[in-house]
């Protein structure tokens, strides 16, 4: 009788807190998790994602993870499974976000927790904000027409950016989004992610956009300098090559010091918080682009 070799299963523990946007240490934990899965899958092993000890999910971490998950499932079909989380809220969130379903686990929970139900989740391949209408209606009800139209216009432009600039013409411009209106904190939160060419990548692919001096300066500054330039950061060389989406987001954010915007792309990030611009370098690159946007609607526009 022939003995079959045991199937090698790598159990990869998901972080206690699935978060990306924050300090370098925060990102290190997230990146280590993604690296472990990538390594195991690349070596031909089956992977079981262990969510049993995961206690908190943040939209930035969950969005990036879902992006990776969709890639893994396409590239390594049948190679990924997961365990149910011990935490009730985490399970509701993973179920609601479609993570458990993607990994072949059935839905066991009634999704009732406000920390789950208040989130709107969208994804798509085109510039079509129709699915986002319930969220935009909620924003209009909580704020004002002026506020809602400003936000809606920025989101529409951001989707146009993804379609026009992040992906090649032949590739569907897939994007993922989480959004919520927090009436208690008087905040709107939007997180958007795509797996297209990064902002620095698309910028450098069009060197005729700038003269040699500017190009040298941008290259020397690294990816964060390029993202800052595309976003129209106050201290940057202004380049509107990537459409109006990013500069409009920055302008909308800058109207109130309580607003915050962070744009992660490839090895760099640009952020604006409290009216101050910041930028920095990432150790592990972000695949595509991640935008994290927090807006305070208590303040007047």
């Amino acid at each position: 009788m022939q003995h079959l070799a045991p199937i090698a299963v790598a159990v990869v523990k998901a972080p206690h807190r699935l978060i990306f946007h924050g300090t370098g240490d925060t990102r290190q934990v997230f990146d280590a998790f993604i690296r472990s899965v990538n390594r195991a899958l690349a070596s031909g092993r089956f992977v079981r994602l262990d969510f049993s000890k995961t206690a908190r999910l943040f939209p930035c971490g969950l969005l990036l993870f879902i992006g990776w998950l969709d890639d893994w499932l396409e590239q390594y079909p049948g190679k990924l499974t997961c365990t149910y989380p011990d935490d009730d809220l985490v399970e509701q969130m993973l179920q609601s976000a479609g993570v458990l379903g993607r990994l072949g686990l059935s839905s066991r929970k009634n999704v009732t927790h406000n920390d789950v139900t208040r989130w709107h989740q969208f994804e798509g391949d085109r510039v079509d904000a129709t699915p986002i209408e319930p969220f935009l209606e909620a924003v209009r009800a909580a704020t004002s027409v002026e506020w809602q139209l400003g936000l809606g216009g920025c989101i529409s432009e951001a989707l146009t950016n993804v379609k026009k600039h992040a992906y090649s013409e032949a590739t569907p411009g897939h994007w993922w989004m989480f959004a919520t209106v927090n009436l208690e904190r008087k905040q709107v939160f939007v997180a958007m992610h795509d797996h297209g060419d990064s902002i620095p990548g698309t910028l450098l692919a069009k060197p005729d956009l700038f003269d040699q001096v500017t190009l040298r300066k941008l290259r020397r500054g690294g990816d964060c300098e390029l993202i800052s330039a595309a976003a129209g950061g106050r201290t940057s060389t202004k380049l509107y090559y990537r459409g109006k989406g990013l500069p409009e987001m920055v302008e909308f954010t800058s109207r109130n010091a309580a607003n915050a915007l962070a744009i992660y792309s490839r090895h760099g990030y640009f952020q604006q918080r409290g009216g101050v611009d910041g930028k920095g370098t990432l150790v592990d690159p972000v695949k595509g682009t991640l935008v994290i946007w927090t807006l305070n609607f208590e303040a007047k526009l």
Partner: protein
Amino acid sequence: MTTAIVVAQQFSRSPGGRTRDDGPYSGERFREEFLVPALKGTDSKFEVDLRGALTLGSSFLDEAFGGLVRVHRYAPRDLKRRMDVHADLDMYVSKVWGYVDEAGRKEHVS
């Protein structure tokens, strides 16, 4: 009676994108299927009502209205004579005419 194009009812509450390959409710599609036929059908004035739309992104507005000058060679002054634009906020009406005027300057169509 003045003809009215009510974007939120006849086209989409969430228009967006520039060209048809961007998505189903692009500026190009709105221009070709609503604005150009209205301009061609009669010489009388008509209304474009943007009220109730939830997304009025720059790309959509520029392609829809600025495109009338860039692509179809309508003169901005003729468009102002023919179209009445309404929106929930005046700034969006200003944006529409801003894109028309900008296209007129760039294309040397007055």
